[in-house]
């Protein structure tokens, strides 16, 4: 059975975010912010959650190797800035230590006595929104495959890599479907790389969440992104089901035109491989 490997410090897994930063990502969404700004915010929150999951009183445990590949214009680069910009994939401990900045935010929490109190919290920022030029998706997925192949070679017994790809547009450097197919075939002994695609739009209309077929997708581009997406493994399908999504046998890791909560959930479901010590 694939996707059963325990995730531990000895056998970490890899999570790669592939983010479209083409010019059209500056369109304003229903949240009042651009698609790029909204995706950046969700990505920072996801990284924060991943680091927090690995943090204990005695330090950060390297359960994950994490990378961000950003593409837009003619560039395919690391989405991290500062010290992290030198490579693509980094141990989660390095991610925790190299933020762009720490913002102070406030959150309301249960005080344990029936009341609510406001707590000051520190919120790290790693990824800044950007939107420019064309959409070199083929090159970005090619770069992703290169990174993932190298990682799998050095981690043959690990839970395989998970790729979360966020895009709003049509590839401008050629059809990426064959590259995506090759990427999904890169494997560890525990299974093939998981590629999940999120198609963000401002067009309105029907949202399509974790479909089992391309029948309801209107344009060829969305249908292609569906075909590029991996089926959800059982434990992720269960998690999506627990969050209220109608997930069936064969549901793919693909969302089209999801509302902001769907975008948040897409990141949360995709970054939920089973930890060895999961409670």
């Amino acid at each position, binding site marked *: 059975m694939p996707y059963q490997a*325990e995730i531990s410090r000895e056998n970490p897994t890899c999570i790669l975010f592939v983010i479209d930063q083409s010019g059209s990502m500056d369109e304003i969404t229903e949240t009042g912010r651009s698609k790029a700004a909204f995706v950046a915010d969700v990505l920072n929150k996801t990284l*924060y959650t991943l*680091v*927090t*999951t*690995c*943090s*204990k*009183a*005695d330090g*950060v445990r390297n359960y994950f190797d994490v990378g961000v590949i950003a593409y837009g214009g003619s560039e395919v680069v690391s989405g991290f800035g500062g010290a992290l910009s030198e490579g693509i994939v980094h141990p989660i401990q390095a991610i*925790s230590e190299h*933020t762009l900045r*720490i913002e102070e935010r406030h959150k309301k*929490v*249960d*005080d*344990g*006595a029936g009341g609510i109190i406001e*707590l*000051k*919290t*520190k*919120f*790290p920022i790693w990824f800044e929104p950007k939107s420019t030029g064309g959409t070199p998706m083929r090159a970005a997925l090619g770069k992703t495959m290169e990174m993932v192949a190298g990682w799998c070679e050095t981690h043959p017994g690990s839970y395989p890599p998970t790729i979360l790809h966020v895009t709003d547009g049509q590839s401008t450097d050629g059809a990426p479907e064959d590259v995506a197919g090759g990427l999904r075939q890169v494997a560890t002994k525990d299974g093939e790389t998981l590629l999940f695609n999120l198609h963000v739009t401002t067009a309105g209309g029907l949202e399509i969440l974790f479909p089992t077929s391309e029948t309801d997708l209107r344009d060829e581009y969305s249908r292609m992104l569906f075909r590029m997406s991996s089926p959800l493994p059982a434990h992720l399908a269960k998690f999506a089901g627990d969050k209220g999504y109608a997930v069936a046998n064969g549901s793919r890791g693909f969302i089209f035109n999801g509302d902001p909560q769907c975008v948040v959930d897409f990141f949360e479901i995709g970054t939920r491989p089973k*930890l*060895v*010590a*999961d*409670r």
Partner: protein
Amino acid sequence: MQPKAPLGLAFSIPKGEDWRNEDSFHRSAKGVYALSDGASVSFDSASWARILVRRYTRNPVFTPEWLAAAIAEFRKLHDRDTLPWMKQASFDKGSFASLLGIRFLERGRLIQVLSIGDSLAVLCDGDCIKATFPYSVASEFNRAPRLLCTNQAENVFLDGVDVGYDLVADWSFSGLEQPALLCMTDALGQWLLSQRDRDASPISELRRVKTPAAFARFVQVERAAGRMKRDDTTLLALW
């Protein structure tokens, strides 16, 4: 009948050689026993587990106030405001642990078992398993257990349970020829329930374990054979 050995046997080994053992156990002079399994993926579950067992053996009446006092004790261990952001976030998320408590009432005639989470109590007569609590089949260990947390928001599940009914089992040694009571954390509990129908009783196998080294060897063999999950593993045995 009061158990003759005040503690019986107690063994615990971590999930790996260089790992901190996040299980904790304790007993009081009055014969109250407690076992707790700290969840690895949380901030400081070892300290939380230790606080829970010590408090339970001092005062084995589990109430919302009891839990609030335990959380208050835990929060004094760390200065939240000076923690770096990732530790502060993890501290806020909370530390999680099970609690299995045993106390003898009515001059030892009644055994009251409190269980929150996935640590298992087993009542035996010789090599025969008479009762287990809170689980009775091995597959129940595959579900995410509800654990006590240092973040009160994570303890809301307790609002929907009747502690005295849903979390407590009342057992007795009466009528048993060779009574014994075992308490164990989840890896051993799952092993025991998955092996209970074998010809060679898993109880007899545990009965043969009399020293920490023997316990370590037994756990290593079962882990290597793929029959036991690699996790902190603790056994309290009142033979």
